[in-house]
């Protein structure tokens, strides 16, 4: 067994990561350890730096200080596409589907990094090209079935209702064949019924697809309901970490959310 696959080793470790934008410190020496197959929640009030953490983890920003180790590789200097290739896929808080593509094409596009053909295969139309194209399509349809989107496969992605677009973003992220799934506020804009279904789905993804999931969420019900470990940040700093029950009782968390007297 290679050290990278050692199950006792955490999948993601963040050590003393600081992110500064000029004079503003958005994230201050953050530590985070996510074990394999965990359902990890990151919460905090508005402007706490959740999305910044997310963007640092996925390579959109390079951290000013600190290191991030994903599956045995230091990723703090890597580009987003390199991190995705290592197996960390994300969704976006403000949905970013490929607007001029169909639902199916959106998912197929994300399988690109797992294809082995070279450009000449596509130009000449080799057997490898046709086999891979079929595989990509089949995998994408399979994912759409899991997310109950298969009947809309040929529809334009942006014609879907809001909740379905969010699910499509998750399906698209899964097409990159990740080990770590990073969800940025997946329940935003969903009604209670949709949020409940989403919770079941996220749990199912972890249990059945053996994924590790980092959830950044505003909706307390969703986070408290499914995450085993919850980390709370405020002004870019960790203020609490623990189980849902522990977090709910923590006076610092209550103060951060409701405001101190």
């Amino acid at each position, binding site marked *: 067994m290679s050290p990278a696959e050692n199950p006792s080793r955490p999948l993601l470790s963040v050590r003393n990561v600081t992110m500064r934008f000029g004079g503003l410190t958005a994230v201050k020496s953050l530590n985070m350890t996510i074990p394999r197959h965990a359902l990890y929640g990151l919460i905090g009030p508005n402007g706490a730096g959740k999305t910044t953490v997310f963007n640092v983890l*996925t390579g*959109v920003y390079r951290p000013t200080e600190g290191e991030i180790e994903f599956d045995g590789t230091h990723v703090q200097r890597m*580009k*987003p*596409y390199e991190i*995705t*290739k290592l197996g960390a*896929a*994300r969704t*976006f808080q403000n949905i*970013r*589907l*490929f*607007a*001029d*593509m*169909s639902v199916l*094409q959106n998912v*197929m*596009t*994300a*399988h*690109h*990094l797992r*294809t082995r*053909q070279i*450009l000449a*295969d*596509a*130009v*000449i*139309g080799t057997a490898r*090209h046709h086999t*891979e*194209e079929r595989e*990509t399509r089949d995998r994408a349809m399979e994912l759409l079935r899991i997310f109950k989107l298969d009947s809309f496969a*040929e529809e334009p992605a942006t014609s879907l209702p809001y909740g379905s677009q969010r699910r499509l973003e998750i399906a*698209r*992220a899964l*097409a*990159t064949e990740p080990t770590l799934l990073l969800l940025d506020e997946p329940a935003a804009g969903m009604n209670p019924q949709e949020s409940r279904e989403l919770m079941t789905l996220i749990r199912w993804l972890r249990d059945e697809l053996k994924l590790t999931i980092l959830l950044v969420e505003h909706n307390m019900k969703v986070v408290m309901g499914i995450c085993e470990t919850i980390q709370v940040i405020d002004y870019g700093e960790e203020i609490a970490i623990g189980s849902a029950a522990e977090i709910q009782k923590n006076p610092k968390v209550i103060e951060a959310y409701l405001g101190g007297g």
Partner: protein
Amino acid sequence: MSLARKLLVVVVTLAALLALNDVFEYGVGDFQINPYYARIINLIGINITLAVSLNLINGLAGQFSIGHAGFMAVGGYTATYLTVYHGRQIAGWFGAGVTNPLGASIVMVPSLLAGAAAAALAGLLVGIPSLRLKGDYLAIVTLGFSEIIRVIILNIPAVGGATGFTDAIPITNFFWIFSMAVLTIVITRNIAMSTFGRALFAIRSDEIAAEAMGINTTRYKVMAFVISAALAGVAGGLSGQLFANPLNPQNLNFVKSIEVIVMIVLGGIGSITGAVLGATTLTILPEALRSFDQQFPGLRMVIYALLLILLMIFRPQGLLGRREFTWAWLRPGKGSRKGVGRGFQ
């Protein structure tokens, strides 16, 4: 499609183009094609290659390049230079002269390959540093590049400088023009329908999401740029050696780039069928309007501009939008809902 069928299609296409080429050059029986029409048809072929190749970068990848004339110039001058200075030698190896049909076809191969390679290299040199730029900034860099190329050519006496490359040997013919147009369409279509095409569409649609889905956006933009430049180089090589239209730096300026952009915008940016249609329309239109000039000199271009303005008002997405030709178009009543009128994405 099986390999045997694919080869059959290639052989049949080439045979058909060769037969048409014969009709073009020698006529059939008493029928001789009007040289004026022949010239327009040849120009249509070259413009199809130009428009479809520009569509790869501007339409499919969504990067706004206005330097296509620059790549055309690099390819054109390289290809023509090779023919003028080494053509006799190359044809001589096969015991042929440059000007007889066999020798011309033999020389055409290395000539076009050299043109494509030189233009591809130029595409790579411009693409790597500048494709991190977006929108208007990229447009300015590509415009600057094509102007630099033009000024360099103006100062090389070996290729004619400001007078143009008048030593060019007319070895381009119908066969080469249209086999290259078909090749360009096939290459672009196959890229568009593959995982690489989806990567380009993703870049066009949302670069941040494309990166997050594992697509190396810079690499694919450079790839599209290089292929597009190489094909523009081929078009340059063809038009430079079409005697009616010798290479001249004045014809390869900013206006030429804009002309090609207008073709793809008119046809529907992002649609390969649209690029073909746009190139055909915009080559024929100015010629078809020529009779207006006999009554009022200059009226032709006024009508031409008016037609373009009206089209952009009533069909801003171009004639076809992003739709593509499929065989279902030709089947009456069938497939009227699915498959027809849809783009690749």
